[in-house]
Structures are given as structure tokens and as C-alpha cells.
């Protein structure tokens, strides 16, 4: 059995060359809007947007890593670590909010740079490096908090989730800002061109005299920096920092990136697709809750939808 026949059928439908995530979002919205009158309510759509914020930010960083043919399994654990460091500084050491935020970002960038150095200079596989970092970051976060949530945060923290500016909730603004910054980085800077080139043809870039290793470290540092930003939003949402708050989120981020059309291996893809992928996952989970599908079946359906969507993309020759 080959992929030729079904692929040909799908291509014959002359579907525009758009990532599967786009179709997924449309189909899911259609299904859920029909099944539940509240799905399209302002309140629910607002919820979905906020629920998707942290995942989207994480996924944007993950896109860059995957574009370089890498992967980062530690982003969820690093998010948790950044969150608890900031929270502990705020609560136990009376640090100011900007200082705590800076500390969180420092922790993130450090973790990311460790990942990057081991990948770029030691030549270790990203999967293994970030798996090890995941273990270490999670442990550190758990030890710092004895596994507990850190509460008693100053009320100003909640602005990162509850606040709004020019009529838009802060998390949405954050997503837009990060998306904008990442877009500019990818498409308007040398860094961005190098990212695509590292994924596509690293050797040629090295021969051209580019210090590929430095830029590779920067990619992992950037992804971890975004994880630190996402940690602020999540801490604000729970009004508490928890060490394992985002464990497993990196897998959803990877799924969002692949659904969005970025390839593990060819240095091809982009953040527009990732945004759609993250929205698709958030819409899927929200919709399944709204239609009241039992938890047990939700678990299976999520897996089925992800695989089906990627399979259709693969058959169309887009993976």
C-alpha cells in the first residue's frame, strides 16, 4: 500500500496550500458552534483566547527550535522554574515586581543557554539535552517549593492576566507582541535567515563563515525566554506559582507547531501556522468541555484529532 492513492485524491480536491491547522480550526469551530449555543458567546471566545495564551507563547519559541531541526522538551519545566523563582523572590524576599520578572527571565535564558551550548558546542542531540534539562529544572522547582504552590503574591501580579490595556486583555497583548517580535526576528533579521538555514542546510552556512553555533545557542535561549514570559501569565492566572504547572505543555506546543505545518526535518514552516495550531488545540479542548464529552473519551479524542490532522497533512505531502 502506498500513499499515492489517498494523497492523489486529496490533492485532486485542489485544497489551497494551507496548513492542516487552518482546516482544523474551521471544522472544530463549526462543530462546536452547532453543538453548543454558548460556544460563540463573547465570554467563551474570550476564555479560549486567554486559555491559549501561554501555550501560544511557548509554541512560538518551540517553532524556532524545531526550524533548526531541534526540539525542546524542557520548556514546560523551565516555565515552572521561572515562575517559582519570581514568586519566591516576591513573597519571601520582598523583591519588586520588575526585579522578580528580570530574575525569571534570567533563569529562563540561563537554562536555554545551557541547552543551546550542549547542542551547539558539544554536539549533543537536542532531544537528550532537553530531556536532561527537563529533569533538572523540574527537580529544582520542586525542591525550592517542596512541591507546594507559592502564594501571597502582591496584587499587582494579577494584572498580567486580569488587566487590560486599550481594551484588550494583557495576555492577548502579550501574545500579539510576542508574535510580532518573533515574526520580525524570523523575517526581518539575519538571525531569522540563519534559523531557516540551520534547519535546511547547516553545513553550507558554516562554510559561508557564519558562526552557526552562537546563533543556535540564541535560539534555545529565546525559546526559554518566552517560557519565562509565559510563566508570568500563568502565575497571574492562578494567583500562585506552582513548580509543575506546565509539565506536559511542551508536548502540546510541539503538536501545535507540527499541526501548523512546521517540519521536524526540513527547516520549513512558520509561526503563522503555529498560531493556528495552538488555537486549534485550545478550541478543541474548550469545545469538548462545552459539549460535555466525558473526560475518559476526551483523552482519546484529543489524540485522535491530532493524529488525523497531521496524517491528512502528511498525505497531502506537507509534512
Amino acid at each position, binding site marked *: *500500500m*502506498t*500513499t499515492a492513492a489517498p494523497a492523489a485524491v486529496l490533492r485532486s480536491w485542489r485544497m489551497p496550500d494551507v496548513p492542516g491547522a487552518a482546516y482544523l480550526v474551521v471544522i472544530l469551530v463549526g462543530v462546536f458552534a452547532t453543538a453548543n449555543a454558548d460556544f460563540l458567546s463573547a465570554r467563551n471566545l474570550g476564555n479560549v483566547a486567554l486559555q491559549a495564551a501561554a501555550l501560544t507563547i511557548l509554541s512560538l519559541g518551540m517553532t524556532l527550535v524545531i526550524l533548526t531541526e531541534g*526540539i525542546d522538551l524542557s520548556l514546560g519545566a523551565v516555565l515552572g522554574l521561572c515562575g517559582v523563582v519570581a514568586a519566591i523572590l516576591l513573597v519571601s524576599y520582598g523583591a519588586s515586581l520588575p526585579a522578580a520578572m528580570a530574575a525569571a527571565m534570567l533563569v529562563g535564558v540561563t537554562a536555554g543557554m545551557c541547552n543551546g551550548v*550542549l547542542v551547539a558546542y*558539544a*554536539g*549533543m*542531540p537536542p*532531544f*537528550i*539535552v532537553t*530531556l*536532561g*534539562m*527537563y*529533569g*533538572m529544572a*523540574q*527537580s*529544582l522547582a*520542586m*525542591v525550592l517549593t*517542596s*512541591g507546594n504552590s507559592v502564594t501571597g503574591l502582591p496584587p499587582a501580579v494579577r494584572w498580567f492576566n486580569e488587566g487590560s490595556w486599550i481594551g484588550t486583555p494583557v495576555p492577548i497583548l502579550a501574545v500579539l507582541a510576542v508574535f510580532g517580535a518573533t515574526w520580525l526576528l524570523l523575517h526581518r533579521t539575519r538571525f531569522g535567515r540563519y534559523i531557516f538555514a540551520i534547519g535546511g542546510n547547516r553545513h553550507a552556512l558554516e562554510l559561508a563563515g557564519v558562526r552557526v553555533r552562537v546563533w543556535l545557542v540564541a535560539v534555545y535561549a529565546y525559546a526559554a525566554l518566552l517560557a519565562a514570559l509565559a510563566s508570568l501569565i500563568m502565575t497571574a492566572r492562578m494567583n500562585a506559582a506552582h513548580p509543575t504547572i506546565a509539565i506536559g505543555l511542551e*508536548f502540546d506546543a*510541539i*503538536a501545535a507547531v*507540527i499541526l501548523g505545518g512546521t517540519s*521536524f*526535518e526540513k527547516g520549513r514552516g512558520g509561526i503563522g501556522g503555529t498560531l493556528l495550531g495552538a488555537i486549534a488545540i485550545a478550541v478543541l479542548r474548550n469545545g469538548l468541555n462545552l459539549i460535555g464529552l466525558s*473526560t*475518559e*473519551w*476526551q*483523552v*482519546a*479524542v*484529543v*489524540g*485522535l484529532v*491530532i*493524529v488525523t490532522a*497531521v*496524517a491528512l497533512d*502528511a*498525505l497531502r505531502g506537507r*509534512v
Partner: protein
Amino acid sequence: MIASVQRLPADVLFVVFTRTAFVAALVALLALATPHFLTVDNIVIVLRQAALQFLIAAGLTLVVITGGIDLSVGAVLGLAACVAATFIANGAVGLGIAAALAVGLACGVVNGALVAYVGIPSFIATYGMLWVAHGLGYVFMNGEVIHGFPAGFRFVGAGFVAGMPVPVLVAAGLIVALHVVLHLTRFGRALYAIGGNAVAARLTGMPTRRHLVTVYALSGMLAAVAGLVVIARVNAADSGTGEELLLTAIAAVCLGGTSLFGGAGGIAGTAIGSLILALVVNGMNMLGIATLWQAFAMGAIVILAVLADVSFHRRRT
């Protein structure tokens, strides 16, 4: 081409040497630190825990050799275990074992087909299968626990033969069997070829797609076997069985050096990796080090081990 083949054995030797040295060092350190470590009872316990770990990581090793990953091993283990438990608790042990293997086979075949024929990256395919298997497990168990298996079955997980726990013997047998498959059969060598360069392998006429389906099927079935041993050990099955075992399985495979340089390390590497992880956990419990540090220790050890492998490899290049 010839040069890279010549390079291979040295990498394997390095892995085996360094890991064995590390095990020896750990054992020496722990023996000095506490008198309770180097007792027959404790060593037997460590071996059994390592064996359980290895059973899950064994199939995963084969998949990693082909350049893929199987994230569903923990979930398939749980689903197979739960299905088997319903039969076994009612006395139908043979039927239960067959059911478990069937579940493992089915999940594995689906994984393999998705990877080989549809062309989905193994990460996503097996991640989806992880969710599907978990979900089916939840639906199947409906929040219940199945407990109380016949003594004959429990022997597989909790019994002893000549002072050795049965899981250790099962693991030993598996090490030998898989080693033979990998190095003395065409199928085994094909796996290495696929891992090295899948396109080239296919161009030589190798039925790579069939082989991939087979290897994922094997991974699923071995996960099912591990599931049987686990539930025989704890005498109970619920939908959470196996959930926490995935990451340590991956760590064991990475520690064993398999994920690099054409699968150097192989089954023996994974076995030693499993032993190292079991020693670390046992040692930390013995020394009273908080459990919260275990993940840190494992992460650091994996990184250090692979760093050593990579440095050695580069120095020889």
C-alpha cells in the same frame, strides 16, 4: 562508508566501558556510604527494579535504533495491563496474556503504519497513540481498580527462581533474544540501516516500511509484556498503571547510548542504563536524599553520559 563502520565498534566499547565503570563506582560509593546497600536482599531488589525498567525500555530501544521514538509505551503498557487484568482476575490467565499481547500488537501496528505508510513523524504519531491508549484505558476501567490475581500469575512478577526474582530472569532472556535479533538476523541489521539512512535503505530494495511496522509492533508487544509483569508485581491494575514509566524508559535508552551514532549501545546499553537508574533511586532512598532530587540526578546523569560519548566520538574523528 567503511570508515564509519570501523568507527562503530569503538563507540560501542566506549559506551559499555564507561557505563560499567560508572556502575562499579556507584556500587562502591554506596557500599561505603551505608552497610545496608551491599546485602543480597538489597541487590536483588535493585535488580528487580532495574528489570522492570528494562522491560519497558527494551522495545523502545529497537524503535530508537531506527531513528524514531515511541512515546506511547507507558500508555500501551497500561491499556494492555488493564485488559489483561479483567481476564486474569477471573482466572483466565492464558486469555489475559493473549489479550495483552493483542492490545500491544494492535497499538504498535497502528503506530508503525502511521509512521511508515502515512509518513507522520514518530513523535506525533506515538504522542497521539499515547492519548488514545490512555483514553481507552480510562473508558475501559471506568475509575475502578482490578485486584487479586491467581498465585500462578503473580509468580511472574513477585516470584523467585533460585533466589532470583522472575522479572530479572525474564529481562535476561529478553536481553539475549533481542541481542540475537539485532545482530544475527537480517531484520536486525535492517533496523540499523534504516536508522542510518532510511532512504538509502529503501533504495537497496529493503522492505523498510514493513520493517518499521514490525519494530513498532514489537515495541507495543514488549510494553504489554512489561505491563503483565508490573501488575503481577503489584497485584492490581488501574488506569494509571504505567503512566509514570515513560520518561525513565527514555532516560534508560539515552543512558545506554543507543540514540547516537548508529545505535551504539543497543540492548546491552539500555540494560545497563536501567541498572544505573535503579541504583540511583535505591541509593538515594538509602541515603535519605529527598525524592524531589531524583529527577535532577537522572537528568544530570543522562547529560553527562551522552556528553562523554559525544566527546569521545569527536576526538576520534
